[in-house]
């Protein structure tokens, strides 16, 4: 078990190409389940591969435990990697695939057999040990790949989108199982995915990356509730947070030709100034749709999406489109006029230039 530490790590794939990873400093605690989350090309997989030693960082240091591992070969870093496409050796049986890392270390045969059986029982794959991995269904291949990683009892697991190739129901099962496994083994886990549900449901902390830059590292709930950048705000959550670009006029946020405006609660006013360009954000569940003439702004229903447990409304308000989530019993039809009320304690403001959040955590206690 070990802590993993990246200090000012940069990765360049050649001159003229933007940095794949840009000045990344991140510490993954011993026993932590950390998810690297971001869209494709954000640098999350490169980061994982640098920790593994499959790529060499251009500058910066990587430590696993107390060791600087910059110049260690992947095999000498004492970590296991689970690949997206499993990378099971097609010419070896399941048993030999799992035993492979131990045999590569020349462990005695009894020891190898004992540990392979142990892992196979834990993953419930003893019945397929003699099979050829190529013929197994995706879920079982996945378990074999996990087995190959677990059998080494490494300092850390690195996983690169391991569930992407499974179908939806299997993926949900494996999420639970992986989380449980990591909990019982207590091994540090770095897990790369672009799927925010995986990230939210499994991790202790999420590190969100975009274009090579680390955006925010925090617990899933904090990432959701207090996004530190506009990118995190729009990337996390479904439907994504409503964002309206505009600027401040006194204590009001104003967008477009002035038709759309929101009066900021007093507790928020100190964090911005008159005429500053800002982006205003609010999550769909913090918008209430009501009968016309009620409190809030006047709006008009564009689309209704009944989802069963809740209903999503897309409403047009003063030339802007907002998405709202309501309990299913509230019913409006497309074209109907409604009133739209925003929860003042749940608003977000982002700097119009840098995209950084303007309101500090906890500001709304005073609303």
């Amino acid at each position: 078990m070990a802590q993993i530490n990246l200090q000012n790590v940069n990765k360049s794939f050649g001159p003229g190409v933007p940095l794949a990873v840009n000045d990344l400093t991140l510490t993954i605690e011993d026993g932590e389940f950390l998810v690297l989350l971001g869209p494709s090309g954000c640098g999350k997989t490169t980061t994982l591969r640098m920790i593994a030693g499959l790529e060499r960082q251009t500058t910066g240091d990587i430590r696993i435990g107390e060791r600087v591992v910059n110049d260690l070969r992947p095999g000498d870093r004492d970590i296991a990697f689970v690949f997206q496409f499993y990378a099971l050796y097609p010419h070896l049986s399941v048993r030999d695939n799992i035993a492979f890392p131990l045999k590569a270390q020349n462990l005695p045969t009894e020891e190898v057999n004992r540990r392979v059986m142990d892992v196979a029982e834990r993953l419930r794959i003893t019945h397929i040990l003699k099979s050829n991995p190529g013929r197994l269904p995706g879920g079982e291949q996945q378990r074999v790949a996990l087995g190959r990683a677990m059998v080494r009892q490494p300092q850390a697991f690195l996983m690169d989108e391991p569930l992407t190739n499974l179908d939806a129901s299997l993926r949900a099962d494996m999420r639970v199982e992986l989380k449980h496994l990591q909990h019982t083994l207590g091994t540090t886990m770095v897990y790369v995915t672009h799927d925010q549900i995986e990230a939210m449901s499994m991790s202790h902390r999420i590190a969100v990356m975009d274009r090579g830059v680390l955006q925010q590292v925090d617990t899933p709930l904090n990432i959701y509730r207090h996004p530190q950048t506009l990118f995190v705000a729009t990337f996390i959550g479904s439907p994504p947070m409503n964002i309206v670009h505009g600027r401040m006029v006194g204590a009001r946020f104003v967008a477009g030709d002035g038709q759309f405006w929101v009066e900021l609660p007093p507790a928020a006013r100190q964090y911005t100034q008159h005429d500053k360009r800002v982006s205003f954000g609010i999550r769909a569940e913090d918008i209430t749709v009501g009968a016309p003439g009620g409190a809030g702004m006047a709006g008009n229903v564009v689309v209704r999406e009944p989802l069963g447990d809740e209903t999503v409304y897309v409403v047009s308000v003063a030339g802007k489109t907002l998405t709202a989530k309501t309990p299913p019993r509230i019913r409006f039809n497309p074209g109907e006029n409604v009133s739209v009320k925003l929860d003042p304690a749940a608003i977000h403001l982002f700097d119009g230039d840098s995209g950084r959040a303007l309101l500090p955590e906890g500001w709304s206690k005073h609303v």
Partner: protein
Amino acid sequence: MDTTGRGRPRFSWLTDRWLAGLFVSPTLIILLFIAIYPLIWSLSASFTDRTLLSRPDQINSVGFENYVDLLNDNRAWQRFVVTAQIVVPSVLIELLLGFAVAMLLNRKFGGRGVIMTVILIPMMLSPVVVALFWRFMMQGDGILNYYIQALGGQPVLWLSSPSVIPWSVVLVDVWMWTPFMMLIALAGLSAVPKYLYEAAEVDRAGAWFRFRHITLPIVTPLLMIGIIFRTMDAYKMIDTIFVLVGDRGGAGRAAQTAGLYVYDTAIKGFDTGVGSAYGYIMLVVIIALANLLIRQLNKVKG
């Protein structure tokens, strides 16, 4: 950079960069030696009067004389005309015939696999053997003329009449290389997704329309690749003609192509300087031709 980690790797010197160099260099050295060295040698030789057996002190520079002489020499140009007379009909017939055979074979029938492979054998054979087979069959009293006469025709002077010889070469080339075009066309035909035909059928498109607007556009880029390969190979081919009708291209040099002319000048005529210059002219022509064809390929690829 901090390299204080414990347990330095045993093969730290064998980095990926090192391996890359180690793996690439033998190939690079061999190819430089066998491709670049001859090119430079030929280029310098083409500006001299050297012969095959000249000693170094007997070689004199002649400037562009060899090139000027060749460009003013009608016979030298004539060799390119002969080359075209053989290359163009060969490639065209192979294209059409290969495509037709591919259309024929693009269905399920018993023994398809074996029949396909048998048809593909000619292109795998040595040109020498193929030319020998045909030379045997094209003898004045050979089997071809026997059947032509049996069907009431006049015997053909396949290997001795200057007006027929180029066509004999074309026939042999077509026999040998039509399978190549067929193979490529077949790959194209099997790449056409079936649902496109089904959609066209739903839209009540006729057979010709389907061929013209579904089959051809998908197959054309592949056929273009085939044409490029065949044109290049036919252009530099000398062995088949050499064996079929002799190293001067037969009676009246009827099939003396550019390649054979280089051989005749540089090797048989010992005139290495002129031969090298002619070889370079050939090279310029083939590079221009390749560029033209590849541009065409990119155009049909869209």
